[in-house]
Structures are given as structure tokens and as C-alpha cells.
């Protein structure tokens, strides 16, 4: 990916994603170390920093193996006095939560910013947890930008605050901040501090109970100091008449929705509007000052009613009686993301104003749903096809313990090979329990290659150690495809696109103590099927875990690689007199590039077909054949040998 805007000129106004604005601010502050693990909607922060680093030569940027490692790496660097950031999606912070809590106890020696991108509405996530609770829980301040321009400013302010207080700070973004482009006015780039000094201090860096008790007291007094300082931080602003009976509090992006709604209701000049960026700890003094004389306060925030709850407790503590509206009062929904019309409606009803939203056009016919699908030529299609066949041929029934990645799409018909999807690594994890208690079915855990390195290793070790026999099907496509093709330890590339040490999955697995390991080419359906059948025998008859590594390039990568190396891909066609309309290729194999005609006989859509050639293998009547052969290198690209 290319992010030239992150290096835009001082003073220029550039359209950029909120995430890129965060990256820009890091470069303006002089961040020297950045780590992260991919996850929508957070990934572009590291990508943009890597883009900058490959041109400037700094800062140090890495995709780490998982969020815990990424967190610890940046934490370590900040201990040694190098301004550092770590980025992840909201659920990533669960993985990193252990060191998160400790970081508040020890503090750091330079800026340490934790960028957490939450996903209200669950556009690409399994839950919509609000990570501001982590700030409350772990005593870590939270800054919430309201858009891309504010993402730059809040990042700069948060980095500065962290540096001054020697304490970690969370920058909480949400999908619509991270993934909305808006014009951002750029400041000057700074030369970062790249090397640090670790000053030994056992009483600080070694949090055994004896030290931790003392550090906890220090943390509590630091927290009070931080609350005091954030209370007067000018990044939180107010507008509108001072004597308004009503105060609207817009937190982060909530401010934008509140402001637009007030404008629409022609109430912008009659209502006091408070914009909150530093939501945790809430700016107590500012809130008390602004609550004075009001009859009602409305809180608009993205996610759970976190700020609303904390505001109420402050008001209660200070004996201020004022009605607070928001999510607890059910004027706004606790689920899903904020929507402009819902906010306008809520404000209108609280303010007693008229608002009649547009009635949307309702078409007389509805198009069929269009869920995402595996790309034409995706290596997983043939693997799933082979997996189904192998289980059927073995006359077995299987539980498919699935995981998160593009391969999650195998949950849909015709494959139905993802019976569970819980969290990253959950596939083998659940199988560790299922294998002990469900005896009449074979347990097949699938896991992607990036997920394997992220969370799979301890789970495989557990299966061997505790004797939970299962098939582990590792889907090695060389990349973290779902989140936008970031590299991982098996890719042979680093975050900057340079060559890196490549860890070979079957070697790693053998090193973990697995004795039954096989490798198959994903684009060779027969080979995959044979390996899986062997694995089923190992599990069923010998009670042994068997790991099958199915290797085949993500087709998007393969096509890009073929065009950059000028490798010709083959062209396939259907001999319609041989086609007997059995439908295997488009029903069971389900290739989107194969289209059935009125009589059920098929043709290949040339603009969708990429030339993976698997349909030729699955057609029982040899009706699909090569029209123009490709270069021999194409096969090596698919097999990830080139």
C-alpha cells in the first residue's frame, strides 16, 4: 500500500484517513518505535508509518507476531526512553491486556501511546467492546479524536502528555474516525529519538508484590494529578451560549454527530456544546463548571455509555442534581454505531424541537443479499472442497472448529466447514476441549498462517501434551489476507517490504513435538484430499494429532506477482459438448467465475477467471480445458516457490 500523503509538506492540507493522520502525528512528534498487529480498523497506522520509514529511514516499524508481543515491544522501547506507539484493533487489546495493566504501574520513560481502534457496528469484528473501559480499569488516560484533523491533534497531545507524565496513554479511535478521509493540515516532521538507555531500577521495573504495592500508591496519586491536568486541557472545548439550560456533551466522534444535529435543528446558537477529547479520566472541573445552572445534560458518545456513567458519578459525588440523557435513558442505542438521524431524533425529543426525518424510498423489489465470498482462484476453495470430500470418503462426521481470516468464509454453503468462530486462535483452542468430550466425531481445526503464528502455537502444544487428538489444517497463503495482506513470520518479508527471515510452518510444528505432519499444495485438490484422509486415520485409529499444512498463495498476491514478473497466466474454457450440467464446478466447488447457462451447462467468465486451474481437476467429465497455456512460473507462484 502506498501512503504518499503521510509525508505531505508542512502547512499543506491533505485528504487522509484518520489512521494516516495518527501516523503523521507520530512523525511530527518524533516517535522512534512503532509496532502493531493487523486488525480492521487499525492497520493503516503501521502501514503508513512503514511507508514513511522506507523513505525516511526512520522510525523503527514492525508488524509483530501478535498484540501482546507488539505491546511489550513498544513498552520495552518506551522504558528505554524512546517515544513509542503500539497499534491494534479493539479485541487485540484483550490479547495485550496483561502487560497493559502493568504498564500503568511502572510507567515509562518516554511517550507510550496505545492506539486502539474500536469497531462499533461490528463491520469487521466479532464484538463491539468499548476499550475506554480498559482506561478506567487499568488507570490509563484515554483520548478520543472526533475526526482525521483531530486525530492528528489528539495524537500529538496524547504523546506529549504521556511524555510529561511518563505514563501510557490510550488513543481510542473508532471505525468512522480511522476509515474516514478528511482534510488535515500538516505540521513539521521531527527527527525521532531512535536509541535509548535502559536505567536499571528493580523497585520500578520488577513488579513483585513488595514493589507493586508501593507502585499502586504512586499510580493512584499520579492518576489524581493526571485528572487535575486533563481537567484544564484546552483540547476539550465549549461553544454556544453560557446561559443555555441544556448542555450537550459530544465525546470523540459523538461531537460531530451532535454538532451536525444541532445545526440541522437550528439549535447550534441556543444550546451549549461541550467537545470532549480526554474522556478518561473525565475533566472533572470542566464538567462541574459546565453543569452549573443546567436543567439537562445530553451525552453523545460512540460505544457504551462510559462517559455518561462517569459523568453521573462525578455529579453525584459533588451533589449536583441534573438530569442526564443518553444511552442509559434509551434516547440513544447501546448497540451499533452512532447514526446522524438517530442523534438528531434524540436531541430533538430532549430539546422539545420538531424533527421529521426523510422517509427513505422503499423499492418494490429487493436485490438478493451479497455476502463476501472467497475470491475466484482463492486457494481455500479447493482445500475446503477437498476437506469435504475427505471426510465423506472416510465415512466420518466432523466438527469443524474454525477461526478468523478469509477462510472464515468457509462457514457459508456449499462448504459449511466453520462450525465455530470465536476469536483468533479459538479454533484449535476449542478443539482441545471438544476432542476430549465428543468421541464420535473427528475434530478438524482450521487456522490461517498469520493466526497460527499469532495464537496457534501454545494450542498445538497443548493438544500434544494433553493428548487431544485432532486434525489441524493450517492454511498457508503467505499473508494476513483478510486485514489487507500484511506480512507475518512465514511471509519472508517485513513491514517495510524488505526480505526477512522466513519461518517454515511444518518445521515449527515439528519443533513443537508433532510427529504427524504433512504438506500439500492447496491448488491440488487430490493431494489435499489424500493428506487429510491420512490425517483422519491418524486421529481416529491412533489417537494422534496430525497437522496438515495446505500451501498455496493468496490469489490476489499471486496475480500481482505474475503481472510484476510478466508471467503469463493460462486461459481455461469449457467444452460445452462435454459439459453434462452436473453443477459440481459451480455448486460444490462454487467458483464465482463459472456461470451456469439456462440449460445448466456452464461457461467461464473470462474477466473473473484468474487461471488457478482447479476446476479442470474437479470436473468429472473433463469438460474444462486449457485454451492458452500459461508460463511454467505460474505454477510456482501459486505454490509460493517464486
Amino acid at each position, binding site marked *: 500500500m502506498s501512503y504518499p500523503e503521510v509525508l505531505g509538506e508542512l502547512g499543506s492540507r491533505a485528504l487522509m484517513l484518520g489512521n494516516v493522520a495518527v501516523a503523521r502525528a507520530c512523525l511530527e512528534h518524533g516517535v522512534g518505535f512503532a509496532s502493531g498487529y493487523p486488525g480492521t480498523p487499525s492497520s493503516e497506522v503501521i502501514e503508513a508509518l512503514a511507508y514513511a520509514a522506507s523513505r525516511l529511514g526512520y522510525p523503527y516499524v514492525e508488524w509483530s507476531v501478535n498484540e501482546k508481543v507488539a505491546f511489550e515491544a513498544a513498552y520495552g522501547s518506551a522504558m528505554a526512553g524512546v517515544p513509542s506507539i503500539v497499534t491494534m484493533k479493539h479485541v487485540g487489546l484483550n490479547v495485550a491486556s496483561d502487560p497493559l495493566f502493568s504498564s500503568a504501574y511502572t510507567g515509562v520513560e518516554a511517550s507510550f501511546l496505545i492506539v486502539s481502534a474500536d469497531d462499533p457496528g461490528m463491520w469487521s469484528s466479532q464484538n463491539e467492546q468499548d476499550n475506554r473501559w480498559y482506561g478506567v480499569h487499568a488507570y490509563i488516560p484515554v483520548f478520543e479524536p472526533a475526526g482525521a484533523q483531530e486525530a492528528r491533534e489528539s495524537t500529538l497531545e496524547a504523546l506529549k502528555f504521556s511524555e510529561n507524565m511518563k505514563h501510557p496513554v490510550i488513543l481510542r479511535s473508532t471505525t468512522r474516525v480511522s476509515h474516514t478521509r478528511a482534510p488535515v493540515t500538516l505540521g513539521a516532521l521531527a527527527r525521532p529519538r531512535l536509541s535509548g538507555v535502559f536505567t536499571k531500577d528493580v523497585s520500578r521495573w520488577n513488579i513483585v508484590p513488595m514493589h507493586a504495592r508501593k507502585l499502586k500508591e504512586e499510580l493512584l496519586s499520579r492518576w489524581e494529578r493526571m485528572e487535575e491536568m486533563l481537567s484544564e486541557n484546552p483540547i476539550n472545548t465549549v461553544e454556544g451560549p453560557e446561559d443555555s439550560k441544556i448542555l450537550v456533551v459530544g465525546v470523540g466522534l459523538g461531537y460531530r454527530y451532535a454538532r451536525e444535529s444541532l445545526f440541522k435543528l437550528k439549535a447550534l446558537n441556543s444550546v451549549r456544546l461541550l467537545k470532549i477529547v480526554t474522556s478518561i479520566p473525565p475533566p472533572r472541573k470542566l464538567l462541574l463548571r459546565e453543569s452549573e445552572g443546567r436543567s439537562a445534560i445530553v451525552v453523545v458518545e460512540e460505544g457504551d455509555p462510559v462517559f455518561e456513567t462517569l459523568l453521573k458519578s462525578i455529579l453525584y459525588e459533588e451533589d449536583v442534581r441534573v438530569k442526564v440523557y443518553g444511552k442509559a435513558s434509551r434516547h440513544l442505542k447501546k448497540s451499533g454505531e452512532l447514526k446522524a438521524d438517530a442523534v438528531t431524533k434524540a436531541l430533538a425529543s430532549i430539546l422539545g424541537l420538531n424533527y421529521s426525518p426523510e422517509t427513505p424510498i422503499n423499492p418494490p423489489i429487493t*436485490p438478493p443479499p451479497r455476502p463476501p465470498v472467497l475470491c475466484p482462484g482463492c486457494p481455500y476453495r479447493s482445500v475446503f472442497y477437498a476437506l469435504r470430500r475427505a471426510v465423506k470418503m472416510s465415512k466420518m462426521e466432523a466438527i469443524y472448529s474454525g477461526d478468523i481470516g478469509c477462510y472464515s468464509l468457509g462457514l457459508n454453503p456449499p462448504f459449511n466447514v466453520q462450525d465455530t468462530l470465536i476469536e483468533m486462535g479459538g479454533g484449535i483452542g476449542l478443539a482441545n476441549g471438544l476432542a476430549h468430550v465428543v468421541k464420535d466425531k473427528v475434530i478438524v481445526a482450521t487456522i490461517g498462517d498469520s493466526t497460527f503464528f499469532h495464537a496457534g502455537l501454545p494450542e498445538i502444544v497443548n493438544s500434544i501434551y494433553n493428548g487431544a487428538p485432532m486434525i489441524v489444517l493450517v492454511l498457508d497463503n503467505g499473508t494476513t489476507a483478510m486485514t489487507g495482506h500484511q506480512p507475518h513470520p512465514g511471509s519472508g518479508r517485513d513491514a517495510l517490504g524488505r526480505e526477512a527471515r522466513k519461518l517454515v510452518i511444518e518445521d515449527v510444528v515439528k519443533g513443537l513435538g508433532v510427529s504427524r505432519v504433512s504438506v500439500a499444495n492447496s491448488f491440488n485438490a487430490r493431494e489435499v484430499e489424500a493428506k487429510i484422509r491420512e490425517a483422519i486415520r491418524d486421529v481416529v485409529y491412533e489417537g494422534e494429532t496430525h497437522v496438515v499444512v495446505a500451501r498455496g498463495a493468496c490469489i490476489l498476491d499471486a496475480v500481482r506477482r505474475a503481472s510484476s514478473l510478466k508471467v503469463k497466466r493460462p486461459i481455461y474454457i469449457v467444452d460445452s459438448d462435454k459439459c453434462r450440467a452436473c453443477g459440481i464446478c459451480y455448486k460444490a466447488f462454487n467458483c464465482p467465475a463459472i456461470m451456469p447457462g439456462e440449460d445448466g451447462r456452464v461457461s467461464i467468465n473470462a474477466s473473473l477467471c484468474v487461471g488457478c486451474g482447479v476446476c479442470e481437476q474437479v470436473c468429472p467429465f473433463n469438460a474444462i480445458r486449457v485454451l492458452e497455456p500459461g508460463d511454467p512460473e505460474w505454477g510456482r507462484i501459486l505454490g509460493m516457490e517464486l
Partner: protein
Amino acid sequence: MRGSLNIIVGGVGGQGILSLARVLGEAAVLDGLEALVAETHGLSQRGGSVIVHVRIGENIEAPLIPMGEADIMISMEAMETLRNIGYMRRKGVIVSDTLIIPPSIPGVKPLKLEDIVEAVKSAGLEAHFLSASEEAKKLGDSRVANIILLGYAYRVSHIKDFISPRSLMKSVETLPGRDLNLKALTLYATLD
């Protein structure tokens, strides 16, 4: 031009919808306007429905366009045009490809183009259907369909009251395949 413009850009993941939307946003910034381009990333880019909210002009704060408040829709697939029609104002303008991409679910039948056109027109909207992907192939690369639609939309909608031809061209110039994209733009927006 005072005021603001809400534009829905829709289609199927992988069609070049994000580039189209970004070009619009960047052109607006070149003209000194405010702009918001709310993108869809993640899983839906694998052949699912994709929708981008583009807002330009004054008093735009929130990234998402409320239902019933889009002035313009630029759509790269006809079924998606119908799917997103709830966003349109009654006086809105639609520019849509006639292309139909069947969803890849076994046994699901796509709608027919005539039925879609009929449904859109029965809502009283000004709708322009053109076979942009076919035209793009004739120009030499099916990937310029997005810029053909953009050019056409520029010609028939209020976009031209907000964005100057110069900025639009400058913004299109940043795309890979610059010459063909510029050609598509000038041809369909009838710029010179």
C-alpha cells in the same frame, strides 16, 4: 457553490469504488472545500456489497449520510444501485452501470436489469444507466469503468457546481493508469 453535497458511491468489493470516492474527495480539497469520505474496509471488500459515503461542501460534520439525504449516487453495479436507493433524496440523481454481478451463493438468482431500471424509475428519481464496464473494455481496460461513471456523473449532476474540472482532472491524474483514466474522464464528463 454554498451548501453541501452528499454522494453515495456503491458497488461490489474489488470494483475500484474506494478510488472513485477518493478522487472526488481529493478534488474537493483541491478546490478548498471540506470533504469527508467514509470508506468500507475489511471483509466486505471480498466481493461483498461496498458503500462509501462522500460529503463535500459546508457544515458537514458526521461521516455518514442519513437515509433519504443523498443527492447523488454513483453505482458500479445495478443490483447495488437498488439496494442503496433508501439513501436517496426524492430529487436525487443516480448514475449507474448496467452491469449485473450475480452474488456467488448457490441457487440465488440475480434480478433482471429491466426490473431494476423500472423499480428505480418508479421511485421518481432521475436515473442514468450506462454500460460503463463495456465502454471501459472498449477503451482498453475494464478497470476505468469507475472513472467513466464519475465523468458521466460530473456532467449530469450538481458535482460540477462544487468541483472545478481542473481539480477533478488533477485528482484523476494521481491514479495508476493516468492517461487512460484522464481519457475516460474527459470523454464522459465532456471536458476539454
